[in-house]
Each structure stands twice: as structure tokens, then as C-alpha cells.
């Protein structure tokens, strides 16, 4: 903490100090409004009727709260020719995200464990290759991946999307676990080996019990990434297997009929709820994942 505002040597009068504090809080409050405003507008718009929206005041509270838009967004809004709301796509996103998160986290944990604790010739090269893969723009693998999914017979299916998310999530999950396990003294592994414990035994009874924080960080990171993904979702799905982000975009951009802004907003909030929920209950771990990718170690 850099305690600069209570600097006794500066000899400010209490009144000046007070004024400075007020300006400070005012500024912080204004920025808070900037960040909250879109969420507020989304929420109030979703609770208004279309007639009220047409009077054109973004920031007013709804005169009459109605949940019609939410009902429509959930079960009858049109994403093109289908009109089933976002519900089936919300489910798709869950069906994609849950297995993909579990598999990529598990494999990342094992990879990280090997790279950090069982150093052998080439392990570092493997890690560098893996790390590099985190940074490629996915556009560069889009075309061959589309063909590969076709060859594998999973084009446009949910297992296909799970597969894609696992593969391109491995770089980050390996990175997270590697950086975590590298700080655990290798003497631990050596001692266990002397005692006759094998590779998996050491992982299972020594490393895994120590791993809860990094598992939480990784699961949250992967879940947020996969839930919020649009590029893979729009490229590798077909009608019926689209994730919720693609469905949301289709609802908003569907040109048939009257533009229902309240339904758009309700659908957007529904699509955002799972990751917002994770952020609210486990924000600390969310931020750790975000910063782990950039400020390593």
C-alpha cells in the first residue's frame, strides 16, 4: 500500500485534505457509473415493454416491470428459422463447457506435473511449444480444423466442439499447473520416489491434494473462455448445436419481424449469467487466472 494521501510532511490543512478525498471518491464513483451503466441499461430495458422503450429514454427505470421479454428470450425468441429461445443453446453451452473444462484441466494438471517435476530432455521444449500455442490467433487453424472435424465425423456436433475446446485449452491449463507445481520443492518428489512411490501415486497423494487453488483458477479460466467463445462456436456448429453466444448473436441480428430490444437484452443477460455468477462468487480466482497468463510466476 502506498500511503500517499496521509503524508504528514506535506502540511496540507484538514480542509484541503477533505476536499481532495471528496474529489477522489467522486472520480471513483463516476468511473463506477461508467462500468455499471451498460448492465443497468440492459437490465432496465429487459424489464420494459416495447411501447415504453420506444419513448427513447435509456436510463429511466421501467414504469411497469414486465418479465415478458425474459420469457420470450428464454423459450420463444427466434434465432433464424427456429423459435425456441435461448434455452436449447444455453444447454448446448453447458454440454460443451462442462466436459471440455474437466478434460482440459485434468490433462493440463498431468502435463504441468511432468514439466515441473519430472524434467527430462525435451520437456522444456515441449513446454515452449505448448506456450507458443497459447498465442496463435485461432483463425490460422480454422480452415484445417473444419476439414479435420469432417474427417473425424464430428463436424457440427457437440463432441466436435468439446474436442476443439480441449485442444486449444491445453496450452493455458498446462501453463497454469506448470507454474504452480514448479514452486513445489522437487525434493518432495525425490523423497517419495526413494520410498517407492510411482508416478501416479506421487501425483495422486502428494500433488493433487495441494492443488485445490490452481484447480479452481484453471476451471474458472477454462469455463469463462469456453462459455464466452464465439469463433469456434460459429465456425464449427450447425443448427441445433450452437452455443448460447451464437444464438444470442442470431437473435439480435435476426431481421424478421419487429425489433424486440427488450428480448435482446434479456437474452444477453441470460447468456452472461453463468460467467457473471462465477465472477461474483469466485472473483479472486478469476483475477488470478487472468493475471497468471500475463504476469507469470
Amino acid at each position, binding site marked *: 500500500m*502506498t500511503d*500517499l494521501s*496521509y503524508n504528514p510532511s*506535506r502540511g496540507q490543512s484538514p480542509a484541503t485534505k477533505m476536499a481532495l478525498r471528496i474529489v*477522489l471518491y467522486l472520480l*471513483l464513483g463516476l468511473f*463506477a457509473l461508467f*462500468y455499471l451503466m*451498460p448492465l443497468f*441499461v*440492459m437490465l432496465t430495458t429487459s424489464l420494459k415493454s416495447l411501447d415504453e422503450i*420506444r419513448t*427513447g429514454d*435509456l436510463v429511466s427505470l421501467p414504469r411497469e416491470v414486465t418479465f415478458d421479454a425474459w420469457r420470450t428470450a428464454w423459450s420463444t425468441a427466434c434465432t433464424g428459422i427456429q423459435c425456441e429461445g435461448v434455452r436449447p443453446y444455453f444447454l448446448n453451452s453447458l454440454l460443451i463447457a462442462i466436459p471440455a473444462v474437466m478434460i482440459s484441466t485434468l*490433462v493440463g494438471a498431468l*502435463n504441468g506435473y*511432468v514439466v515441473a517435476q*519430472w524434467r527430462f530432455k525435451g*520437456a522444456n521444449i*515441449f513446454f515452449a*511449444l*505448448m506456450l*507458443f*500455442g497459447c*498465442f*496463435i*490467433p485461432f*483463425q*490460422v*487453424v*480454422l*480452415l484445417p*480444423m473444419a476439414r*479435420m472435424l469432417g474427417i473425424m465425423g464430428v463436424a457440427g456436433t457437440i463432441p466436435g466442439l468439446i474436442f476443439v475446446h480441449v485442444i486449444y485449452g491445453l496450452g493455458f491449463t*498446462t501453463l497454469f499447473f506448470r507454474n504452480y507445481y514448479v514452486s513445489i520443492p522437487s525434493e518432495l518428489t525425490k523423497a517419495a520416489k526413494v520410498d517407492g512411490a*510411482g*508416478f*501416479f501415486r506421487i501425483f495422486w497423494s502428494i500433488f493433487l491434494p495441494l492443488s485445490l487453488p490452481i484447480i479452481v483458477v484453471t476451471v474458472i479460466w477454462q469455463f*469463462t473462455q469456453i462459455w*464466452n467463445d464465439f*469463433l469456434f462456436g*460459429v*465456425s464449427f456448429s450447425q443448427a441445433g448445436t450452437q452455443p448460447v*453466444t451464437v444464438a*444470442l448473436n442470431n437473435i*439480435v*441480428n435476426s431481421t424478421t419481424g419487429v425489433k424486440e*430490444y427488450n428480448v*435482446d*437484452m434479456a437474452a*444477453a443477460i441470460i*447468456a*452472461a449469467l453463468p*460467467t*457473471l455468477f*462465477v*465472477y461474483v462468487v469466485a*472473483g479472486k480466482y*478469476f483475477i488470478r487466472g487472468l*493475471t497468471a497468463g500475463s504476469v507469470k510466476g
Partner: protein
Amino acid sequence: MTRWLQDNMPKIVLAPSFIIVMVFVYGFIAWTAWVSLTRSRLMPRYEIDSFIQYERLAASPRFETAMVNLAIFGTLFIVIAMVLGLLLAILLDQKIRTEGAIRTIYLYPMALSMIVTGTAWKWILNPELGIEATVQGWGFAGFEFGWLVDPDKAIYTVVIAAIWQSSGFVMALFLAGLRSVDEEIIKAAQVDGIPTWRVYSAIIIPSMAPIFLSAFIVLAHLAIKSFDLVIALTGGGPGYATDLPATYMYAMAFSRGDIGQAASSAMVMMLVVFAIVVPYLYSELRTKDD
């Protein structure tokens, strides 16, 4: 046999991931690079035929727009997000009682999908019923804010939404940096009567150089990969006024059926990313190995 298995278990465990990375990352990059040198259109062809696709890219006004947009968007997004993030971090570093809550508010957009962000801002910025109409309704009849539908200005709406989404994250990075500066030095400076702004500009901020670099890398990376935000906010329009290389690539690959152009534009994107990331990764890995 079991002995061999025991000894080689680490390699056996790593093998599938190794194969996957070699095929699905490096093999696929090689495939795209190869196809970018052919005359592929609707179907990929494999006879190498010079740099024809890159010449077509260079001659394409649409791709030029995309690259210019990337430069405008990337520069503004990175600079403003860094300045704003640093400012917020410094403001929050003054023993604010409600710091936890404020930080949560500043950072939550980072948890949202770009599609959600784009949808929200598209609604807020739409001229008929959004901010423009709202401010007019307050009595400012002459107020105009039609950037979203103005081909010359639409790219700036993408900047606004992207900054809204990511600046809180930059703040979190900088805040962690401010907290890691050696307190003794700061105290010593204060005892010497050095004014607060000098303490920041001469001591604290220069010592955070690595964090500036990290923030820059992350933001640059986000900017180049930006795809969903443009799709949700402007759909690349009006016309193709807000196209970025990422949306150009997607349009060529999936709606225009021009695989050669898709592959070559993807390669350009990758080269831009690597020009930024490779020196950074290289220095990171080198210091790690010591």
C-alpha cells in the same frame, strides 16, 4: 516391462499432448501457410503457385480497410486502456475504504462474452432509441451521436466497447504492480518531502516497466484477435467499414468461399501476433531457464 513403463511414464503421459500440439497447432499452421500459397478458392488445392493470394490481399480495398482499422483500433484501444487502467489503479491505491467493491465493479465486464458486450453497446449507441434519443429527450434537441452508423466513425464505437470491457483488467494488473513497489523507498521519498506526483512519476511508475510490457502484450493480443466484438456490435459494417483482419478472414472462409484469401489473411494475422509476442516469450523463457 513394468520397470520400463515406470521409467518412461512421464514421457508416455506427455506424448498425447505433444502429438496434439504438433498436429493441431503446428501442423495446422503449416497447412494454412501451404494453402495460402496456392490458388485455392472454394476447395483447397495443393499446387504451390507463388504469392498470388498475398498479392490479392494487397490489392483488396476491403483488406486494406481491415488493416487500417486494426491500426486505428489497436492503437487507441491499447493506449487508452493502459492510461485509464493506470489512472484507476492510482486512484484506488489511496486507501479507499470500499476498494474491494469498486474493484469488483471495474472488472466485471471482463467476465462477459464479447457478444454480450457488443449487444449491450449496440443498443446503447443506436441512434434512434439509444443515447442520442435519450439526451435529446432531456432537452438537448441538437445532440447527435450516430457513430455506430457512420462509416467513418463506427470503428470508434468498437474502441469504446473494447475499452469498457478490458480497462478494468489493466487496472487490476497495475494495482498489483503498485502494491509490489518497495514501501521503504516510497517512505524515504516522503520523508524527504518529495511531492506525491513526483513519487509516482519518478519512482513508482518507472519501476513497473515489466507490467506495462505485460499489459501491452495482452491488449495487443486481444486487439488482433478481436472478432466477436465487431460481429456483435457492427457486423463489420456499415458496408465493411469496421472490418478487421479477423472478420475478413471469417468472411472469406465461411461466406465468400475463398479459402486462399482466408488462409493468407490468417497468416498475416499470425505474423502480426508473432512480431509482438515472440520477443516477449523469448525473453520470458530465457530468464526462466536460468
